């Protein structure tokens, strides 16, 4: 496969993930489509290009670790795990249903391939630091990735953790911020401004890479660059659009932060994301 074909294939997967997100949240009649759609390209690049992992051996000691700190974006991670082969794609429709392993927010004990339970925001980076420290102690060369939301960076613990990553010079850790500029109550800049965002990370001693969070090629380059940075943690601030890929969600991101699409909206969204058939019945 040429590099171009590879990019095309990942883009195709991202589109599939978006379709799953719409179908899953619609079937569940709840969930967080907006912040899942914004992270779809990041997750596609991670699971189908960047991460060293083996769906047939989810506890492989040398696997890379991924912590989804923004645990409400569970649908995009479940979709990626299913597409990667951790469990059947058909199981995705059980999202948020009683007895399902696909909990509303991520639960590491109920699903293979999940490294940490999240949902209470702000904790993932600390856990990722712990994994990176363990990797160093065990002389393993695995890499740890942690995806956070930009609104999530209101949480003080993120900055506690940012100091920890810097202090221990965790170059086996890459943080990614899904910078979609919205939180549930409104625009982040209106609720509580996080700017100057990149400068904050720089001031905390991090190497900062900014990229387009919907361009597969940009993301792959950013991840590769991040791995080359030594004796310093790297954060990739991925510029994204909340609800990306579905026009009416992009236009009204606040309506779809924590609200599922209706049946009719599902059809419209799938047409936009299409080239696969809408669900039967």
């Amino acid at each position, binding site marked *: 496969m040429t590099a171009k074909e590879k990019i095309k294939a990942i883009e195709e997967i991202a589109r599939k993930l978006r379709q799953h997100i719409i179908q899953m949240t619609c079937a569940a009649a709840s969930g967080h489509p907006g912040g899942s759609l914004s992270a779809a390209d990041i997750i596609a690049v991670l699971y189908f290009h960047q991460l060293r992992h083996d769906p047939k051996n989810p506890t492989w000691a040398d696997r890379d670790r991924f912590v989804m700190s923004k645990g409400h974006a569970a649908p995009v991670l479940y979709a990626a795990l299913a597409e990667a082969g951790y469990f059947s794609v058909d199981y995705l429709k059980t999202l948020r249903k009683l007895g399902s392993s696909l909990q509303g927010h991520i639960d590491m004990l109920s699903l293979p391939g999940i490294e940490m339970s999240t949902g209470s925001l702000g*904790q993932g980076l600390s856990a990722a*630091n712990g994994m990176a420290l363990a990797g160093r102690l065990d002389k393993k060369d695995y890499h740890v990735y942690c995806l956070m939301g930009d609104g999530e960076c209101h949480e003080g613990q993120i900055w506690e953790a940012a100091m920890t990553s810097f202090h221990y010079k965790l170059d086996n850790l890459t943080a990614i911020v899904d910078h979609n500029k919205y939180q549930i109550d409104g625009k982040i800049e209106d609720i509580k401004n996080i700017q100057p965002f990149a400068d904050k990370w720089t001031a905390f001693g991090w190497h900062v890479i900014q990229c387009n969070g919907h361009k597969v090629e940009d993301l792959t380059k950013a991840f590769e660059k991040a791995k080359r940075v030594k004796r310093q943690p790297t954060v990739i601030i991925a510029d994204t659009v909340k609800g990306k890929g579905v026009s009416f969600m992009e236009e009204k991101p606040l309506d779809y932060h924590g609200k599922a699409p209706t049946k009719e909206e599902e059809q419209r969204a799938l047409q936009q994301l299409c080239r696969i058939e809408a669900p039967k019945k």
Partner: protein
Amino acid sequence: MSKKEIATRDVYGQTLLELGKENPNIVVLDADLACSTKTAMFGKAFPNRFFDMGIAEQDMISTAAGLAACGKIAFASTFAVFGSGRAWDQVRMMAAYTRLNVKIVVTHGGITTGEDGASHQANEDIAIMRAIPNMTVIVPTDGVQTASVIREAANFYGPMYIRLSRGKTPVVYENGCEFKVGKGTILKEGTDLTIIACGIMVEKALNAADALKKENVNCRVIDMPTIKPIDKELIIKCAEETGAIVTAEEHSIIGGLGGAVAEVIVENCVVPMARVGVRDTFGESGKPEELLVKYGLTESEIMAAVRHVLARKK
């Protein structure tokens, strides 16, 4: 004749050091209190496996969870108020919900923290830790038992909250102690009433039982270091055999040992019961022994509770 006294936190530091030599998988985290919690001893011996996280308890607990998720046995220490209260959500989310091998070993539990005052006196920590599913909650009785508890913690898989004291505490187990999670111990046989105690109140319960003998009251005394899972069988047996219960703890009467015992009594074997503990109030600065008197954590308070319950028994 004064009894031998040992600080449980000193034993913790020493035991961690021994465990560190035996098990390379043990890592220790602290939040800028390593000299007080005594984890500094481990830190000095095993600098690579020791992480002083600074004044960041929440970060400490979640980092410990990350280490545990990669197979480490993570001991995380700070003062009881911070390990339970400041980091409660992190304990709930990343140590308990995940059932990871995180041992939260805190010092400066209870009112005997003393001069630092109410902000530093954890009188609610057992209640809030006990409410979390998957958590095991232990209050060691003395220095001897603490060594056994810490060793057991390293062997036991899963999250644990272990509460130690600031000051020196009298040795109850002069002839050694084999601690088992979830098991209470009958320290003194008796037929009229059972005093169930934990932590520093165990020795006071034994003293109260001795003094009550002169009043022809024959008290049984139970050491109950595991608050969760509570030794239900032993509580029911004691309620049935002695017909009355008094609990004694250096903690609020709400939700701690007294609460746990009351839950068992009410649902299984209703007998008169009283709880000795801090009565739903904050503490204040003072010497530990002064505070124990002012806040009703004394032998005479236990004796009064016993008399009160016995009157209800008749």
